[in-house]
């Protein structure tokens, strides 16, 4: 630290301005800068990883409440570790059933939502759509509203349509995906020159053939990102699922989490944590599978 102070003093002290610095000075400065960069990155990494570590630790804990947390409790000790929480969830609770229900609902919503987003996104980018500007502004504005304020109007609307049940959820879930993903895909496709589709047309394809053979494969990164985003919302949704689903056979993971972690008086946090770990695994796997695309989806990679 002293060295840093010395260096900064030298840098900012007017008298030292005239000083001729030698090469080793700059080499030293470079390693100091590198050290600072690494320190910041390590702190950020701990900040990001700690919650996951803590949840995993808690899920293996014999204690059920947060009251016993102490600094020494942040380190695993053999005496307090147990796999009972996982065992109970997997064998005594209908975790598999909840997972199945969730994956089916999320899968259908994601697939339909993303399929519609692809077509609407491409249409908004490539075709003449009357009122395009207004549609785009609307899409953007709608994404700014929190989901929770829509729960009550959605309930009334779907009640009138007789859609307050498990399958009724597909509509708001896929609609939610469409709002953001159409916008995302539109912007991505905007950055792809039309030359590629035109080249495919010259190469013997119809306009729609060019779309499927060239434009959609080229949009894979943004489609992967859309799938992930469309999956995450419904997969973790509790508020909407709770009012739509009344039948216990249709419970999704989020509702299951709520019921499974209810203790007699307090919330059973170790069960809650074990549940979270299990529930997080599919998302983790999805990320792994799409990782290659998602990075370029975020960066809106352009084609030259």
């Amino acid at each position, binding site marked *: 630290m002293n060295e840093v102070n010395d260096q900064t003093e030298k840098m900012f002290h007017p008298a030292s301005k005239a000083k001729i610095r030698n090469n080793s000075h700059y080499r030293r400065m470079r390693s100091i800068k590198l050290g600072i960069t690494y320190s910041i990155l390590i702190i950020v990494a701990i900040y990001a990883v700690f919650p996951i570590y803590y949840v995993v630790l808690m899920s293996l804990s014999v204690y059920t409440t947060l009251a016993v947390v102490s600094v020494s409790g942040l380190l695993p000790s053999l005496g307090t570790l147990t796999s009972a929480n996982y065992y109970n969830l997997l064998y005594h609770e209908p975790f598999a059933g909840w997972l199945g229900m969730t994956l089916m609902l999320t899968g259908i919503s994601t697939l339909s939502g993303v399929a519609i987003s692809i077509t609407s996104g491409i249409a908004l980018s490539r075709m003449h759509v009357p009122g395009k500007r207004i549609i785009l502004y609307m899409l953007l504005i709608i994404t700014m509203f929190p989901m929770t304020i829509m729960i009550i109007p959605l309930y009334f609307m779907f009640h009138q349509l007789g859609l307050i049940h498990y399958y009724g959820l597909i509509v708001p879930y896929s609609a939610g995906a469409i709002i953001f993903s159409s916008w995302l895909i539109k912007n991505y496709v905007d950055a792809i020159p039309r*030359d*590629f589709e035109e*080249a*495919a047309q*010259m*190469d013997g*394809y*119809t306009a729609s053939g060019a779309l499927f053979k060239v434009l959609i494969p*080229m949009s894979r990164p943004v489609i992967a990102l859309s799938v992930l985003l469309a999956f995450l919302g419904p997969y973790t949704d509790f508020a909407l699922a709770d009012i739509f689903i009344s039948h216990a056979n249709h419970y999704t993971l989020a509702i299951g989490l709520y019921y499974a972690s209810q203790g007699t008086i307090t919330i059973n946090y170790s069960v809650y944590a074990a549940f979270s770990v299990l529930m997080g695994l599919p998302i983790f796997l999805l990320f792994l599978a799409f990782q290659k695309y998602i990075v370029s989806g975020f960066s809106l990679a352009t084609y030259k």
Partner: protein
Amino acid sequence: MAKLRLENIVRNFGKVKGVFDISVDIDDGEFFVMLGPSGCGKTTTLRIIAGLETPDSGKVFLDEKEITDFPPRERDMAMVFQNYALYPFLTVAGNIAFPLKKRKIPPSQIQEKVEEVAKVLGISNLLEMKPGQISGGQRQRVALGRAIVREPSLFLMDEPLSNLDAKLRTSMRGELKRIQKNYGTTTIYVTHDQVEAMTLADRVAVMNNGIFAQLDSPLEIYNMPKDTFVATFVGDPKMNMIPAELVNNGKGPNLKIGDTIVDLDLSGLSMPSGVQSMDVSLGIRPEDVKIVERGLNGKVVVTQNLGKSKIEHIQLSGSNAEVIRMTGVESDLDSGQSVSIMPNESKFYIFDSANEKRIWPLTG
């Protein structure tokens, strides 16, 4: 192998004029170049031929068959795009094979053709790579390969060399010409680079504001430009244009620059009856500017030595015109020096300032 005919093609974009009344016959096996500045309508014309754009009026014929409204896939033409438009998700081999996939050709035959084309273009070692992993010149070859592999009746090329660096452009130019001659395929080539037009073309159409300003062989365009646009667009450095006046001396017209009557042989040139003087431009190519004892007086402003040649900027006295002279490196003119210049022999042009048309030399 095909002939192409355009008849009175018109295409406007809103109020902006794209192409205005273009007609041309392109012969079987011809290398036809459309040359012009950006926005002159050359790419629009090419896209109309490709079927990527529909003309407002006019007709397109391929081998005497009208194809104006045919979709691109039915036209049997291959196009090379300025940015190559290689599909980034396919390998080089996949890109070259792409147009064949649609034609129900057995995979073994496709592979054979891809390998054959790759060999011709010298890219056999790149077949398994993705377009993102290869250099600009290599991408250019792949794009060419994708066009060649189909053996189309027509090649369309939209500034295919403009994304390459100067050295590579020169070598690819030669290669393009060789490939075109090998396959004998009619080629329509769009460029803004006059060197490409001069070296590649059998015929050049110089385009300006949506029309063909001149349609001729490259040499004819260089030697007999029809108007000031063609004269200054083709040639590097561009042709000198000196504001001048034609005055009637009783027997015939004389050329006057400032107050000097220039002693040039204009026999045969006549002025419209009743006209005593008209504004014109005297055009001289830089390589035809000659230093003489008595002629147009001026002062050397700056000189540039290019190694194999030298460029001298000469400010004419009594006129705003600056004349560029291109000469051998042995010239010892220095800036500040007073000189007198004249066009070399009969190598000069006179353009009517009113309509920009050439009025001298008379023929052509």
